[in-house]
């Protein structure tokens, strides 16, 4: 008997994948419903190993879902809810068409709602999984919390986002989990470490909502995402609060208005209240301290002792970071963006307040003598207290990223700020450009520099210091770039000295040149199999090297320009007078002194 001939694509990759159209047919759903279901259930198309086979021999590129995924959707009870929605929409449509408003009202009041609790558990088997996937959730929720009521974004949703994000911030404050902060042109990046998982989120700058073109952004899709994310965030918050021995939902002291009134107050007041709430600690269920910092045991012998030492140092620094602002009192001036700053300061144990007459929730007055830092973002102020530093907000961010309190002298009011560096640069990666400022931080020569700065301050020569810095930076750059240059210089020095006779000198770069040549010959022997890979890798390397070179060049040009500028200024200053300079120095002293 002849074996039955197998049909093509009945096994293997051809049977494993399903195009979207086939999936829709199988699920008996409209595209919109399917999309919603996919978003909520976290189903995504998959890239087959062999597309042609997976598409059953069809050409073109199709959205392919795994058959098992579609079967998984098939068993989802939500599908029935979606069908209910369909019926509901029909009913509502009819009632509206015949103008039966009573019925319409009734329908609208009991519209079907999706319950997503089980999906959260299904998608995130453990709490840690949920934490791991919290980045997008938080960023989107923070964005939606700034939204007005839109066509597809109900007011309830953005209000819920506001509530949940605020709760999350409180949890982070209580857990002292914040690690890194960064002011980007896109928004404030925050990175927290919760239970060993890093969670990064972006809080957009003020006035982030802009009406978008319909072809550009579909708020309906985003709203569906937020629908799921709010539920996820709620459960995460609940567990976090529970872990931190806090009541959930939290009771905020300052918000004591009832619901009706809250609808009436305008947006600004509402925002102000949210920030005010950030400024007060939450009530706790018990006074036990959640201590999860464990000393790193020396059991893991497989690692080298240096590494363990390094890890220990890191842990020590992290611990130090948690109490970075402890004992410091901050006062925020009116123009400073309050929400991120209050969050940061509270996270690291500082006290913060602002003008009572402008926003609610301030805890102490501007005239309080115990304020240590006054955060200003304007070039000058009329009233000064001797007892405090007037600094710009970037100091907070840089200090946090540095995990220690940086010297404030570069951040005084009206100073031109040093560049704000990203804390998210992976230091292990080679072939990346490190700006001189960061190198200064890495070299731990910061204290040295600081000392020098102080000395300079004492002498009252600020410009010189900058010059020196530049020169140093320049020197470092050159060191890295071209060793040969330095050697050339040393040769030049040698030429000056008198040497008896002509001794054959090996050309210093000859050796490296030769090595390079040899390498070039050798790299031609790369296996055929790896040739393309090698080529692309080398291309990438070259590209990166070029980028670094470009950045160095730009920096060098910039520094040269700046040096020229300062020189010009100095000349002018010299032409003027000595005393004027002294005065300047006096004003540039560490503490701006003037009694109100």
């Amino acid at each position: 008997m002849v074996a039955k001939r197998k049909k093509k694509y009945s096994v293997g990759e051809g049977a494993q994948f399903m195009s979207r159209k086939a999936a829709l047919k199988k699920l008996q759903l409209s595209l919109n419903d399917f999309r919603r279901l996919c978003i909520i259930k976290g189903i995504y198309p998959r890239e087959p190993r062999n597309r042609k086979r997976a598409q059953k021999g069809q050409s073109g590129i199709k959205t392919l879902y795994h058959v098992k995924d579609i079967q998984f959707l098939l068993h989802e009870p939500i599908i029935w809810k979606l069908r209910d929605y369909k019926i509901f929409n029909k009913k509502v449509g009819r009632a509206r068409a015949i103008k039966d408003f009573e019925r319409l009202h009734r329908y609208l009041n009991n519209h079907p709602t999706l319950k997503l609790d089980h999906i959260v558990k299904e998608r995130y088997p453990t709490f840690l999984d949920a934490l791991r996937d919290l980045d997008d959730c938080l960023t989107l929720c923070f964005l939606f919390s700034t939204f007005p009521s839109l066509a597809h974004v109900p007011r309830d949703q953005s209000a819920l986002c506001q509530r949940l994000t605020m709760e999350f911030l409180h949890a982070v404050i209580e857990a002292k989990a914040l690690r890194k902060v960064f002011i980007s042109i896109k928004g404030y990046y925050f990175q927290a470490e919760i239970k060993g998982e890093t969670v990064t989120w972006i809080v957009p700058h003020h006035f982030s909502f802009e009406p978008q073109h319909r072809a550009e952004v579909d708020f309906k899709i985003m709203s569906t995402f937020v629908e799921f994310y709010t539920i996820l965030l709620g459960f995460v918050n609940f567990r976090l609060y529970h872990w931190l021995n806090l009541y959930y939902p939290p009771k905020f002291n300052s918000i004591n208005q009832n619901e009706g009134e809250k609808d009436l107050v305008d947006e600004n007041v509402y925002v102000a209240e949210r920030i005010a709430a950030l400024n007060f600690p939450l009530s706790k269920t018990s006074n036990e301290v959640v201590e999860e910092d464990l000393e790193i045991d020396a059991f893991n012998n497989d690692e080298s002792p240096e590494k363990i030492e390094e890890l220990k140092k890191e842990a020590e620094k992290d611990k130090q970071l948690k109490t970075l602002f402890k004992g410091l009192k901050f006062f925020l001036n009116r123009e400073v963006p309050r929400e991120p700053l209050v969050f940061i300061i509270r996270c690291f144990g500082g006290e913060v307040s602002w003008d009572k007459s402008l926003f609610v929730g301030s805890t102490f007055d501007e005239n309080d003598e115990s304020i240590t830092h006054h955060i200003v973002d304007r070039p000058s102020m009329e009233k000064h207290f001797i007892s405090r530093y007037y600094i710009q907000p970037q100091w907070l961010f840089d200090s946090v990223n540095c995990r220690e309190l940086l010297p404030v002298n570069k951040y005084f009011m009206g100073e031109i700020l040093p560049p704000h560096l990203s804390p998210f640069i992976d230091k292990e990666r080679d072939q990346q450009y490190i700006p001189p400022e960061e190198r200064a931080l890495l070299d731990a020569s910061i204290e040295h520099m600081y000392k020098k700065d102080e000395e300079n301050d004492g002498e009252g020569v600020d410009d010189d210091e900058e010059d020196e810095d530049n020169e140093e930076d320049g020197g470092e750059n050159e060191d890295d770039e071209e060793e040969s240059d330095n050697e050339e210089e040393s040769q030049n020095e040698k030429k000056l000295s008198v040497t008896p006779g002509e001794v054959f000198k090996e050309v210093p770069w000859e050796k490296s040149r030769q090595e390079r040549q040899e390498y070039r010959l050798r790299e031609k022997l790369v296996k055929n199999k790896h040739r393309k890979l090698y080529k692309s890798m080398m291309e990438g390397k070259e590209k990166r090297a070029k980028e670094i070179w470009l950045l160095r060049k730009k920096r060098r040009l910039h520094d040269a320009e700046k040096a020229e500028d300062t020189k010009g200024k100095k000349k002018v200053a010299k032409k003027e007078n000595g005393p004027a300079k002294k005065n300047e120095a006096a004003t540039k002293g560490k503490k701006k002194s003037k009694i109100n």
Partner: protein
Amino acid sequence: MGKTDKNLKRKVEEASNSKEIEEEKGSDSEEEDFLTTLNGDEDSSDSDREIEDSEDDNNELVEDEGEENNDSISGEDSEASDELEDEEEDESDEEDDSSGGEEEEEPLSEESEEETSEKEDESPKSINKLSESSKLDKNALSRSKTDEYADNDTSDEEDIRNTVGNIPKNWYDDYKHLGYDWDGKRIIKPEQGDQLDAFLKKMEDPDFWRTVKDPQTGQNVVLSDEDIQLIRRIRGQKIPDVNFEEYAPWIEWFTSKVEQMPIRKFPEHKRSFLPSKSEAQKVSKLVHALKMGWIKTREEQAKLRAKKEPQFYMLWQTDDQTEEMRRIHKHISAPKRLLPGHAESYNPPPEYLFDAKELKLWNKLKNAPWKRKLHFIPQKIDSLRKVPAYPRFIKERFLRCLDLYLCPRAIKMKLNIEPESLVPKLPSPRDLQPFPTVMSLEYKGHTDMVRCISTEKTGQYLLSGSDDGTVKIWEVNTARCLKTIKIEGVVRSVEWCPNQALSLVLVASDNDVYLINPHVGDTLISQKTDAVLSEVPKSDHIIPERIRTCVQWLEPTQELYERGVRLHLKHFKEVTQVTWHGKGDYFATVMPDGANRSVLISQVSRRRSQLPFAKAKGLIQCVLFHPTKPCLFVATQRHIRIYDLVKQNLIKKLMTNSKWISTMAIHPLGDNLLVGTYDRKMLWFDLDLSTKPYQTLRLHGTAVRGVAFHKRYPLFASGSDDRSLIISHGMVYNDLLQNPLIVPLKRLQDHDSFNDFGIFGVHFHPLQPWVFTSGADSTIKLYSN
């Protein structure tokens, strides 16, 4: 437009007055006349003013213009006045009912008339003034009746010829003028008399006490009696209006009495005392709906709303324990977004900011944003408060959402290796010395490309053949040309006889192959060679037709003999290559165009040739004798065939996998073959191993034209059209299990290119680790260690 206002008022007054007069029916004609002169007849008033103008020239223009304005607006005014009249009528009716204020009015108007008559006598100017004052009275009258103008119009009491407005007059103290009239002309201050004049006036003028100065015009104004009366009344704290009756009887507009009887004559309906049935029905419906839960109270609604809000509870009991449930199949979690670098900072280091060129490039890639270096333009903002919202934030979030649910996911293994690790680890060239590293000598003398070179077996002399139709013999150590042998035609191939007992070289040019005694070196040998070659071996062998048409062994002509040619072979096609067998008796010639007769093996001692192949296997490029075995390597365009010359059969066919073979060389041990191809490759064949190349070397950038093995050292070299000579280490081990070691050692590039040709011939010194190269730049170079 004060004038027009005034006019309007006048008209109104006139109307009201006339009505009163009509009612009175006994009014004085004089008054009527006066009124008409004032308001009704334009002509008469004009005439009045003309009189005034004659006195006061300054104001002439103003007045005229005022009139014009009057005319133009009068139409509208009349309408307005009509309306006003109506209103007044109504009010006057009311007045009629209540009290007759008119009786008091009459005498007053008479009074005013008397006064006017007095003033008329005095001066025409005062008439005007008076008219105003009388109008004032009228105004007051009308006010007493109707309070119509009380609040909005008092401007008619002022002279508003001056346009400066209500400003402190002392501002004009230093000027000659007081202000500006309607034309914008200055109003000059009237002449101010000195104190003496003032005194005289005081003495002489009886009206001096009632003369005041108008601050607007600077004119003296004589107050009328009414004015004075008004002032007096104000001073006396009386009501300024003379006509106001302080003690008028009280009129009770609304009754204060409580009526005993109903006003309507029918009683209240029963309905009004019974509860409404329909309302009760409605209420019961509502109650029912409440009971049934159809409608909700507000509290209930709030509760429901709270219930609809998501309820959170402890979803995960522990941190890391999972509950068994159906989950997504082989979940691939979405990759996290890349974290921002320094460039994204609001205050990045200055080098990250775009310069003009980068910005231009960024803008240029508008339609291909994925090619951009950064997806945003770095910005430096000097202060945090100035940081604006990122305009693409929502869009970026949206794209991320799209990625999350629409982007196909797959697990990709990421290679985390350094590119250097892909480069094979080879011993350092320094450990593999000696090998030629520097160019030490250059042999100049040829005038055209040098295609082929060869050395004597001892390495003392170098032989070269060039396109200029000469063969030159050089002394290797001094680079001196010892001999130049002229040969017509391009010399395609030369080779020194490997037999040391013979001083003989083989030269191929066009269709001819010459055996030349170069007469260098040991004279004994060369003489012996001459002697050996002079005698023609006798044989009765009949040369087959096939060979005879192919090659003819000729004695050289006298001329050729003098040049050193000892034997002359004439072929039927162009010869491209000649090569000796290792013993030095046989040699092979290659004629690529010869079809099945392209390879010819000739024996010098017998002066005989034979054609080893009966069939053409392809376009033959070159042939090579095995150094020890009786084998012949024949390279066609793509393959190399190895023939056993004794058994006369094919041993092996080597697959080169390249398009066009150019040359080949065999390792002195005979187990390895190096093949150069025009498609830039060099192929190392290990003959024991496989018919496929053991290693393909892509060392050159262009066609390889010459390859050579060193006889003693483990070296091989290759020259190509890219003018470079690459010397490599090619160690062959006796151990069969160990594969040859190939290490490229040195790249030397000294030849110039000519017609896109670089190096043609590569030849090692037989004893020293030196290498000769002949190039298209008509030079030969020696590289030594």
